[in-house]
């Protein structure tokens, strides 16, 4: 077995009462259901259920399993509404409803959207989906070929189907939608194909597009108007989404939105990141490349931007800015603040004031040498000139990699411990910028990449971050990148999965391994926990390796090519010996 030992023990005395908690309006009292992948609008992935706890979790056993019939990367979170569980598979994006009130959870219905097979060729990193969302009796989900579909949650009958993405320009949809105030929020993928990013709000009733906010281009396209008040001066000015690019380059400049959205009902603001600029080779796009690799706060009714902050201006390393943001209220240096916590791809754990976009803290949560910190006066990332990529030069040992210290895999926050549980990577890379032609519908990257394990040799880690103290409480090493999400419970148990296929429960306080179960394939999904119709607590996870990290297995790639899967294969050569493709739901309960 591989190393999996806590690096640091938690403080010995009992922690004080929760000083950090999500705003009540964004994290209502737990009803035992799981209606959106992030659990609630604050994106805490915290469950108040405590039947399963540190003491008894070792007794967990299988309640039932279910084969999704699709052997591609299973990144989705199952949903539980009432006595029904909903799961959505990777391409061909089948939706299953399972009846939890009957033994063995038989299938209630299934819906096959039959997406265009050609979409598989333009999905950058396996044909994943990150899940569905439930609201007002409907299941909303996206298909790889660019449709958003609303189903009747009871019958599985389609209610509407909106075609909003075009695979012929390389556009796909992999994110899970978020439903806010009768609007279904959806963004596009395609940052590796020169696709211009957007977020759309579709009317939950009939699917028509209410607003579209682009990630690049003129202010009117980005929905920047009189309400836009960014905190930092560099983000002020007219049409920066055009002027911070070479002529016309913003049209093929990325800034996609394929990750997570949070919502603060009190402030009436949604928060979403923007993806990397395209192409990866930075020499082909001098300028700050707004509004890529940053974060927007917007009014959900109109899409109007309120503020913006750029994590990685003129991104040099494919540091997409689309990770999850956890909304919390806490005492920050003597003052009560409404904050937004973001473990970012570039390696920093950011704490932002979510009313203004001001950076309060940015500390690396793992090895970072591509930059030397964040200037808290200007908010600007301080690039390391030694790790600056460009045409015709090979830059070695850049940490973190293009996949980031942490990619999309969402973390979880417990108000009981004040800790953020972060599944992440520990990888470095060599990069060489090359010329690239823009051909619509084909990759627009311009970078040769070769990834290697990071310092220590463990390619993944699971870190509990003390938000108030701005440092890790403990960290577990994992052999492969931890590409699964996390969930934490009031029973002080944290669940996550490994790419070998272990589903693990560790102590939220100390990181001690309490229980583990070997599933049939590597885990890259999002665990959830819910109260079943019998009143008992269950834990569910989809097993099935894939995603960018697992593409070597799900896509049967050849490890002799160091640059396969945009260089990820080089760091994952042995994954084919550790696991095989799969697609199975596992649900656990106490005996």
């Amino acid at each position, binding site marked *: 077995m591989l190393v999996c030992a806590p690096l640091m023990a938690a403080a010995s005395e009992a922690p004080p009462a929760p000083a950090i908690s999500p705003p009540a309006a964004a994290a209502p009292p737990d009803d035992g259901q799981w209606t959106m992948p992030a659990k609630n609008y604050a994106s805490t992935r915290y469950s108040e259920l405590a039947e399963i706890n540190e003491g008894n979790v070792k007794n967990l056993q299988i309640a039932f399993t279910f084969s999704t019939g699709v052997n591609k990367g299973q990144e989705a979170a199952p949903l539980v509404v009432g006595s029904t569980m909903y799961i959505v598979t990777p391409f061909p994006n089948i939706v299953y409803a399972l009846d939890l009130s009957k033994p063995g959870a038989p299938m209630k219905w299934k819906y096959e959207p039959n997406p265009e097979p*050609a979409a598989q060729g333009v999905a950058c990193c396996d044909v994943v989906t990150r899940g569905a969302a439930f609201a007002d009796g409907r299941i909303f989900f996206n298909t790889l070929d660019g449709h958003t579909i609303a189903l009747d949650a009871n019958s599985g009958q389609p209610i509407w189907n909106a075609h909003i993405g075009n695979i012929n320009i390389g556009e796909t949809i992999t994110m899970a939608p978020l439903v806010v105030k009768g609007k279904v929020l959806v963004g596009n993928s395609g940052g590796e194909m020169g696709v211009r990013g957007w977020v759309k709000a579709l009317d939950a009733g009939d699917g028509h597009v209410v607003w579209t906010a682009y990630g690049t281009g003129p202010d009117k396209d980005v929905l920047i108007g009189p309400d836009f008040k960014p905190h930092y001066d560099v983000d002020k000015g007219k049409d920066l989404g055009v002027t911070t690019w070479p002529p016309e380059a913003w049209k093929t400049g990325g800034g996609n939105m394929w990750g997570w959205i949070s919502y603060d009902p009190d402030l009436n603001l949604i928060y979403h990141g923007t993806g990397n600029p395209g192409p990866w080779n930075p020499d082909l796009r001098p300028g700050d490349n707004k509004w890529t690799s940053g974060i927007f706060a917007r009014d959900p009714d109109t899409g109007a931007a309120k503020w913006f902050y750029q994590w990685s201006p003129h991104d040099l390393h494919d540091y997409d800015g689309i990770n999850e943001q956890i909304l919390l209220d806490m005492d920050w240096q003597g003052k009560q603040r409404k904050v937004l916590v973001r473990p970012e791809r570039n390696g920093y754990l950011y704490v932002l004031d979510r009313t203004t976009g001001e950076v309060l803290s940015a500390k690396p949560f793992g090895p970072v040498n591509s930059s030397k910190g964040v200037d808290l006066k200007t908010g600007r990332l301080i690039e390391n000139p030694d790790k600056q990529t460009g045409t015709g030069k*090979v830059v070695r040992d850049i940490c973190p990699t293009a996949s980031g210290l942490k990619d999309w895999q969402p973390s979880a926050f417990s108000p009981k411990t004040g800790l953020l549980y972060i599944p992440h990577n520990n990888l470095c890379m060599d990069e060489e910028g090359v010329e690239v032609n823009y051909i619509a519908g084909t990759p627009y*990257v311009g970078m040769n990449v070769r990834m290697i394990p990071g310092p220590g040799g463990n390619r993944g880690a699971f870190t509990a971050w003390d938000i108030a103290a701005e440092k890790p409480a403990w960290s577990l090493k994992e052999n492969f990148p931890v590409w699964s999400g996390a969930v934490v419970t009031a029973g002080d148990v944290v669940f996550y999965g490994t790419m070998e296929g272990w589903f693990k429960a560790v102590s939220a306080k100390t990181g001690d391994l309490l229980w583990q179960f070997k599933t049939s394939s590597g885990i890259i999904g999002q665990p959830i926990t819910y109260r079943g119709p019998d009143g008992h607590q269950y834990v569910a996870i989809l097993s099935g390796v894939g995603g960018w990290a697992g593409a070597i297995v799900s896509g049967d790639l050849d490890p*002799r*090519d*160091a640059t396969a*899967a945009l260089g990820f294969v080089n760091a994952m050569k042995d994954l084919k010996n550790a696991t095989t493709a799969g697609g199975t739901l596992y649900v656990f309960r106490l005996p």
Partner: protein
Amino acid sequence: MRPAVVMLLLAGLALAACQREERDTRPQSALGSGEQPTPVTTLEPGGQRPSPSDNKAASFEANAFHLSEGKRLFGWFNCSGCHANGGGGMGPALMDEKWIYGSSMESIHATIRDGRPNGMPSFRDMIPDDQIWELAAFVRSLSGNAPSAAAPSRDDDMMAHPSENRMPNAATLGKSP
């Protein structure tokens, strides 16, 4: 060319290598040939018939110039964006012994020209026919299916794998890498 030089070359190289630099100085029109059917299965009810071959296949396959052009075009037309340097990514690996639609020059030519249903774009209107043959020849070299005397022997970029003229024939490696 002086006869002495020719003799020296003949002595030093295998027969196939003699043609490594031979080529038409005036290539065919952009649209070119290659419209004959290329089956993607060996199952043929009523008995297997010899698969049709295109006379271009042979002339491009063993030719160093065409192979090196194919290598250049593989990056130029963003094949490398989806297939990396043969190991695959958005598209399947091209350096292994597994072929979905056939490994012959004709099959690969058809793949590039017409596309394939699960995400291989059709380059029919973008790449002239002769360049498609050059790409097909280069694709075969990735799995060691080109004479080593003709296959590209160097890489101008960051090393992804040994150069094509040193690639072992994937089909005879015995097992998948």
